[in-house]
């Protein structure tokens, strides 16, 4: 009886023990799966976090590339004075002919895009595999009002669009849009543009050159470079260019950083028969120095179509001033082309003539100051003659801004 009682007791304790072990093992297995799933969650989370970090760093790379591309583009576009097929863009073509904000914006965006995509093409990461495709558009966020009010004098924003990043890390594969805005600061591109534009619209250089055409009346017939044909006109033109340069420099509010130079690239004078029955300066259409340079802008990406057509003039390369400055300062070049013709207007007396003032005037003064050829005053103070002086100059005005150096 006692043995059977003990045997039952032992059996029941064995059952309890087995049950305990069973529960324990089941809990252990459950815990094992839970822990494993927790661990794989951590690993998965870490993987996702890594992919996102690689994404951020790649975006950082493209942002940095866009910054450097903007600097390089600003340098290049400033050097060309905007953009032209060849040579420097003309800002004065007998009258103000400066590019609009949208026109410069277009070329600055295009050039930045081109440079940016070169960096993108050279981005090569194998572990993890990162695909970075080209941008389709870079737009400068400036407008007529922000530029003219000086808001973009020291900084401007750009937006880059159309690129994607794909990161492949083990079995994870994440794609993200790579579009961003970036502030380009300490670049005074739009400041120089603004001042040059103010200058082009207010300088009296075209009128001054027109006023000097009378000097050609005293030079021989024919056409040649001013230095050979009519040195007095060349000297006069150089003086007027220097006056215009000084005026340009005076428009800058911080002259300690800005230095401007001007070079007379070409000067040709001619003396021929008067074919136009007018007594003021008109364009000398087939002038030999070269025409006015500009390039038609395209459509701004993601923005309005450029408006406001400018007069079309066949682009001809200006030769001469091709100085390449290897510094990191922004150098803005602006081309000027002036080409006038008008009838000889005898406005002054020769030094040794005795003609009464405002009545008689002289068409050609001799070497000793005597009047060699008298013209009859039949139109007030002017004597319109059959002679027609023609003069053309091309000049390049350059300002270097040494306030900030560029990352170029």
């Amino acid at each position, binding site marked *: 009886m006692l043995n059977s009682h003990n045997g039952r007791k032992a059996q029941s304790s064995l059952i309890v023990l087995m049950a305990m072990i069973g529960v324990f093992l089941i809990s252990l297995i459950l815990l*094992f799966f839970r822990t494993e799933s927790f661990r794989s969650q951590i690993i998965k989370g*870490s993987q996702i976090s890594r992919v996102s*970090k690689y994404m951020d760093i790649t975006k950082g*790379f493209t942002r*940095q590339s866009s*910054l450097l591309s903007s*600097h*390089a583009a600003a340098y290049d576009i400033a050097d060309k004075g905007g953009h032209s097929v060849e040579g420097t863009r003309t800002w004065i073509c007998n009258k103000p002919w400066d590019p609009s904000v949208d026109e410069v914006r277009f070329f600055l965006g295009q050039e930045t895009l081109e440079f940016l995509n070169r960096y993108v093409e050279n981005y090569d990461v194998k572990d993890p595999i990162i695909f970075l495709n080209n941008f389709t558009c870079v737009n400068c966020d400036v407008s007529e009002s922000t530029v003219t009010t000086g808001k973009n004098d020291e900084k401007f924003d750009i937006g880059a669009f159309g690129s994607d990043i794909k990161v492949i890390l083990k079995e994870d594969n994440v794609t993200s849009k790579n579009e961003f805005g970036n502030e380009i600061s300490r670049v005074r591109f739009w400041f120089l543009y603004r001042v040059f534009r103010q200058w082009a619209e207010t300088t009296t250089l075209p009128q001054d050159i027109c006023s000097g055409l009378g000097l050609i009346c005293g030079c021989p017939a024919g056409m040649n470079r001013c230095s050979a044909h009519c040195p007095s006109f060349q000297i006069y033109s150089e003086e007027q260019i220097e006056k215009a340069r000084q005026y340009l420099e005076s428009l800058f509010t911080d002259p300690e950083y800005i230095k401007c130079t001007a070079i007379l690239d070409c000067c040709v004078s001619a003396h021929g028969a008067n074919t136009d029955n007018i007594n003021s300066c008109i364009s000398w259409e087939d002038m030999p120095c070269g025409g006015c340079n500009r390039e038609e802008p395209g459509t701004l990406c993601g923005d309005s179509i450029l408006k406001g057509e400018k007069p079309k003039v066949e682009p001809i390369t200006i030769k001469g001033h091709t100085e390449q400055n290897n510094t990191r300062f922004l150098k803005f070049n602006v081309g000027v082309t002036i080409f006038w013709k008008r009838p000889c207007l005898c406005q002054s007396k020769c030094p040794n003539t005795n003609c009464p003032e405002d009545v008689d005037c002289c068409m050609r003064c001799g070497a000793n100051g005597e009047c060699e050829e008298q013209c009859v005053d039949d139109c007030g103070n002017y004597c319109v003659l059959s002679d027609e002086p023609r003069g053309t100059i091309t000049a390049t005005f350059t300002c270097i801004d040494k306030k900030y150096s560029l990352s170029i």
Partner: protein
Amino acid sequence: MELLEILTVVIGVSILLVLSYYFFTSSREKSMQVITEEKEFNRLTNDITGFFYNRIPVIDKNLAQVLGDYLRWGENSNVFYGKYYGILNAKEIIEIYFNSTFENKWHLETSYNGEKFEFGFETPENMRLRTFIIKLPIPKSLTDGEVLDVKFTQW
């Protein structure tokens, strides 16, 4: 007989306890290792992201820009940033930035135009090193889009 059963239970439970302890600690260790590794990776990549994004006050340039300018134009640790700012000690600025996170446990090196550039501290032997290759765009007028490999090591 009863004593033997009790002994079996005790041994059985002990073995199960030891096994479960081993299992949990090793599993925890592995998880902790992943977490620690993740933390270190985040620390490293945060600094590298900041290298592209954080702008230095006053001069308003980021460190990637300063390093690029230094590699291209630097002379004796310095870069000239125009009349307004004058000369900036680029090497010092880069070292201050990485020292703030990694103290004296980092090393940065790259080569440009055949010249080797090094920043930070000597890489120790017999230590686990974490290396990240930073792709750095280099400034160039009329650029050809040159991209350099900058090796950043941390321990």
